[in-house]
Protein backbone atom coordinates (compact mmCIF):
# COMPACT_ATOMS: atom_id res chain seq x y z
CA UNK A 1 0.00 0.00 0.00
CA UNK A 2 1.40 3.40 -0.99
CA UNK A 3 1.65 6.48 1.26
CA UNK A 4 -1.14 8.22 -0.66
CA UNK A 5 -3.52 5.32 -0.10
CA UNK A 6 -2.69 5.29 3.62
CA UNK A 7 -3.30 9.03 3.83
CA UNK A 8 -6.71 8.64 2.16
CA UNK A 9 -7.69 5.87 4.61
CA UNK A 10 -6.51 8.04 7.53
CA UNK A 11 -8.70 10.91 6.29
CA UNK A 12 -11.62 8.48 6.05
CA UNK A 13 -11.13 7.19 9.60
CA UNK A 14 -10.89 10.79 10.84
CA UNK A 15 -14.20 11.37 8.94
CA UNK A 16 -12.68 14.29 7.08
CA UNK A 17 -13.82 12.76 3.78
CA UNK A 18 -16.81 10.60 2.84
CA UNK A 19 -16.64 6.97 1.68
CA UNK A 20 -17.45 8.03 -1.90
CA UNK A 21 -14.66 10.58 -1.93
CA UNK A 22 -12.23 8.04 -0.49
CA UNK A 23 -13.24 5.54 -3.14
CA UNK A 24 -12.72 8.10 -5.93
CA UNK A 25 -9.34 9.14 -4.55
CA UNK A 26 -8.25 5.54 -4.19
CA UNK A 27 -9.20 4.83 -7.79
CA UNK A 28 -6.99 7.74 -8.83
CA UNK A 29 -4.02 6.21 -7.03
CA UNK A 30 -4.39 2.87 -8.87
CA UNK A 31 -2.19 3.76 -11.87
CA UNK A 32 0.56 4.44 -9.38
CA UNK A 33 0.09 0.89 -8.11
CA UNK A 34 0.67 -0.42 -11.63
CA UNK A 35 3.93 1.42 -11.97
CA UNK A 36 5.12 -0.24 -8.79
CA UNK A 37 4.54 -3.66 -10.36
CA UNK A 38 7.61 -5.50 -11.49
CA UNK A 39 8.52 -5.53 -15.14
CA UNK A 40 8.51 -8.89 -16.96
CA UNK A 41 12.32 -8.83 -16.88
CA UNK A 42 12.26 -8.54 -13.08
CA UNK A 43 9.68 -11.26 -12.60
CA UNK A 44 11.18 -13.68 -15.11
CA UNK A 45 13.09 -16.62 -13.61
CA UNK A 46 16.80 -16.71 -14.39
CA UNK A 47 17.56 -18.99 -17.34
CA UNK A 48 18.87 -22.42 -16.50
CA UNK A 49 21.77 -23.77 -18.47
CA UNK A 50 20.45 -26.44 -20.86
CA UNK A 51 21.66 -29.93 -20.02
CA UNK A 52 20.23 -32.02 -22.82
CA UNK A 53 19.60 -31.69 -26.52
CA UNK A 54 16.44 -33.54 -27.51
CA UNK A 55 15.38 -34.80 -30.91
CA UNK A 56 12.04 -36.52 -31.30
CA UNK A 57 10.70 -37.92 -34.53
CA UNK A 58 7.11 -39.06 -34.17
CA UNK A 59 5.24 -40.71 -37.01
CA UNK A 60 1.58 -40.09 -37.57
CA UNK A 61 -0.63 -42.44 -35.59
CA UNK A 62 -1.20 -45.68 -37.50
CA UNK A 63 1.44 -45.00 -40.16
CA UNK A 64 3.64 -47.80 -38.74
CA UNK A 65 6.82 -45.80 -39.30
CA UNK A 66 9.78 -45.72 -36.95
CA UNK A 67 9.92 -43.22 -34.12
CA UNK A 68 13.10 -41.80 -32.63
CA UNK A 69 13.60 -40.21 -29.25
CA UNK A 70 17.17 -39.12 -28.52
CA UNK A 71 18.50 -37.29 -25.49
CA UNK A 72 22.07 -36.10 -25.93
CA UNK A 73 23.90 -34.52 -22.98
CA UNK A 74 25.33 -31.10 -23.82
CA UNK A 75 28.61 -32.24 -22.30
CA UNK A 76 28.86 -34.91 -24.98
CA UNK A 77 28.34 -32.35 -27.73
CA UNK A 78 31.01 -30.13 -26.17
CA UNK A 79 33.38 -33.11 -25.98
CA UNK A 80 32.58 -33.96 -29.59
CA UNK A 81 33.41 -30.42 -30.62
CA UNK A 82 36.83 -30.84 -29.02
CA UNK A 83 37.34 -34.01 -31.02
CA UNK A 84 37.37 -31.93 -34.19
CA UNK A 85 40.98 -31.03 -33.29
CA UNK A 86 41.84 -34.61 -34.18
CA UNK A 87 40.41 -34.34 -37.68
CA UNK A 88 43.26 -34.05 -40.16
CA UNK A 89 43.20 -31.06 -42.49
CA UNK A 90 42.54 -33.06 -45.64
CA UNK A 91 39.49 -34.68 -44.03
CA UNK A 92 37.99 -31.22 -43.42
CA UNK A 93 38.56 -30.45 -47.10
CA UNK A 94 36.66 -33.61 -48.05
CA UNK A 95 33.77 -32.65 -45.75
CA UNK A 96 33.68 -29.12 -47.20
CA UNK A 97 33.67 -30.55 -50.70
CA UNK A 98 30.78 -32.89 -49.85
CA UNK A 99 28.84 -29.98 -48.35
CA UNK A 100 29.50 -27.84 -51.42
CA UNK A 101 28.14 -30.60 -53.65
CA UNK A 102 24.93 -30.43 -51.60
CA UNK A 103 24.78 -26.68 -52.13
CA UNK A 104 26.02 -25.72 -48.66
CA UNK A 105 28.91 -23.31 -48.84
CA UNK A 106 30.35 -23.76 -45.36
CA UNK A 107 33.86 -24.32 -44.06
CA UNK A 108 33.77 -26.71 -41.08
CA UNK A 109 37.13 -25.39 -39.88
CA UNK A 110 35.53 -22.02 -39.25
CA UNK A 111 32.99 -23.48 -36.83
CA UNK A 112 34.34 -22.64 -33.39
CA UNK A 113 33.17 -23.63 -29.92
CA UNK A 114 31.96 -20.06 -29.32
CA UNK A 115 29.62 -20.41 -32.30
CA UNK A 116 28.22 -23.54 -30.76
CA UNK A 117 27.67 -21.75 -27.44
CA UNK A 118 25.73 -19.06 -29.29
CA UNK A 119 23.67 -21.69 -31.07
CA UNK A 120 22.79 -23.40 -27.78
CA UNK A 121 21.92 -20.07 -26.17
CA UNK A 122 19.56 -19.39 -29.07
CA UNK A 123 18.02 -22.84 -28.77
CA UNK A 124 16.99 -22.23 -25.14
CA UNK A 125 14.44 -19.75 -26.45
CA UNK A 126 13.53 -21.79 -29.49
CA UNK A 127 11.82 -25.06 -30.23
CA UNK A 128 11.89 -26.40 -33.73
CA UNK A 129 8.79 -28.24 -34.85
CA UNK A 130 8.71 -29.65 -38.34
CA UNK A 131 5.60 -31.37 -39.53
CA UNK A 132 5.89 -32.75 -43.01
CA UNK A 133 4.58 -35.85 -44.67
CA UNK A 134 3.81 -38.51 -42.12
CA UNK A 135 6.29 -37.46 -39.44
CA UNK A 136 6.68 -34.74 -36.88
CA UNK A 137 10.16 -33.65 -35.83
CA UNK A 138 10.63 -31.81 -32.57
CA UNK A 139 14.03 -30.36 -31.63
CA UNK A 140 14.61 -28.57 -28.36
CA UNK A 141 16.91 -28.28 -25.37
CA UNK A 142 16.01 -28.91 -21.74
Amino acid at each position, binding site marked *: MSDNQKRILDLLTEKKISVDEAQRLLSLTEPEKDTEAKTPYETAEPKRKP*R*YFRVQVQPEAGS*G*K*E*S*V*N*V*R*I*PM*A*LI*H*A*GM*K*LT*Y*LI*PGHASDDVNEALREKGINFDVRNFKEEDFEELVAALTDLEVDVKGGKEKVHIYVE
Partner: protein
Amino acid sequence: MNCPPLLMRLGIYGQRRRLSLWLPLFLLWPLAAAVAIVLAPLVLLAALILWPIVWGKLMLLSGPLLFRCLCALRGLELNLNLGKRLLLISFK
Protein backbone atom coordinates in the same frame (compact mmCIF):
# COMPACT_ATOMS: atom_id res chain seq x y z
CA MET B 1 33.92 -33.00 -15.50
CA ASN B 2 31.42 -35.79 -14.82
CA CYS B 3 32.55 -39.22 -13.81
CA PRO B 4 32.15 -41.94 -16.46
CA PRO B 5 28.78 -43.71 -16.69
CA LEU B 6 28.38 -46.48 -14.16
CA LEU B 7 25.61 -48.45 -15.83
CA MET B 8 24.43 -49.03 -19.36
CA ARG B 9 20.90 -50.14 -20.03
CA LEU B 10 20.27 -52.07 -23.18
CA GLY B 11 16.73 -53.02 -23.95
CA ILE B 12 15.27 -54.79 -26.98
CA TYR B 13 11.56 -55.28 -26.80
CA GLY B 14 9.94 -57.32 -29.54
CA GLN B 15 6.51 -58.83 -29.88
CA ARG B 16 7.71 -62.21 -28.63
CA ARG B 17 11.02 -61.61 -26.90
CA ARG B 18 12.01 -59.01 -24.37
CA LEU B 19 15.60 -58.37 -23.46
CA SER B 20 16.57 -55.89 -20.80
CA LEU B 21 20.17 -55.73 -19.64
CA TRP B 22 21.82 -53.54 -17.09
CA LEU B 23 25.53 -53.65 -17.87
CA PRO B 24 27.78 -52.71 -14.92
CA LEU B 25 30.25 -50.42 -16.65
CA PHE B 26 31.78 -49.48 -13.31
CA LEU B 27 33.48 -52.90 -13.33
CA LEU B 28 35.27 -52.04 -16.57
CA TRP B 29 36.79 -48.74 -15.51
CA PRO B 30 39.41 -50.14 -13.10
CA LEU B 31 40.52 -52.58 -15.82
CA ALA B 32 40.61 -49.78 -18.40
CA ALA B 33 42.65 -47.62 -16.01
CA ALA B 34 45.14 -50.47 -15.47
CA VAL B 35 45.51 -50.99 -19.24
CA ALA B 36 45.94 -47.23 -19.76
CA ILE B 37 48.70 -47.09 -17.11
CA VAL B 38 50.52 -50.04 -18.68
CA LEU B 39 50.23 -48.59 -22.19
CA ALA B 40 51.06 -44.99 -21.22
CA PRO B 41 54.88 -45.31 -21.57
CA LEU B 42 54.50 -46.99 -24.96
CA VAL B 43 52.10 -44.32 -26.19
CA LEU B 44 54.46 -41.61 -24.93
CA LEU B 45 57.36 -43.22 -26.75
CA ALA B 46 55.35 -43.58 -29.96
CA ALA B 47 54.24 -39.94 -29.67
CA LEU B 48 57.86 -38.79 -29.30
CA ILE B 49 58.91 -40.82 -32.35
CA LEU B 50 56.00 -39.53 -34.41
CA TRP B 51 56.29 -35.93 -33.14
CA PRO B 52 57.99 -34.58 -36.32
CA ILE B 53 54.93 -35.62 -38.29
CA VAL B 54 51.59 -34.45 -36.89
CA TRP B 55 50.53 -37.85 -35.54
CA GLY B 56 52.54 -37.57 -32.32
CA LYS B 57 50.63 -34.55 -31.08
CA LEU B 58 47.31 -36.09 -32.14
CA MET B 59 48.18 -39.28 -30.30
CA LEU B 60 48.84 -37.39 -27.07
CA LEU B 61 45.67 -35.31 -27.44
CA SER B 62 43.39 -38.19 -28.31
CA GLY B 63 43.62 -39.91 -24.89
CA PRO B 64 42.23 -37.04 -22.76
CA LEU B 65 39.70 -36.09 -25.44
CA LEU B 66 38.32 -39.61 -25.70
CA PHE B 67 38.18 -39.85 -21.91
CA ARG B 68 36.19 -36.62 -21.85
CA CYS B 69 33.76 -38.06 -24.40
CA LEU B 70 33.42 -41.19 -22.31
CA CYS B 71 32.57 -39.16 -19.21
CA ALA B 72 30.05 -37.12 -21.14
CA LEU B 73 28.12 -40.24 -22.15
CA ARG B 74 26.28 -40.14 -18.83
CA GLY B 75 22.68 -39.20 -19.51
CA LEU B 76 22.69 -40.24 -23.16
CA GLU B 77 19.44 -41.93 -24.10
CA LEU B 78 18.43 -43.46 -27.40
CA ASN B 79 14.94 -44.74 -27.90
CA LEU B 80 14.19 -46.21 -31.30
CA ASN B 81 10.85 -47.67 -32.21
CA LEU B 82 11.47 -49.80 -35.28
CA GLY B 83 7.91 -50.80 -35.91
CA LYS B 84 7.86 -54.27 -34.40
CA ARG B 85 10.86 -53.72 -32.16
CA LEU B 86 11.74 -51.17 -29.56
CA LEU B 87 15.41 -50.48 -28.90
CA LEU B 88 16.52 -48.62 -25.82
CA ILE B 89 20.07 -47.62 -24.94
CA SER B 90 20.82 -45.41 -22.00
CA PHE B 91 23.83 -44.57 -19.89
CA LYS B 92 23.38 -43.87 -16.19
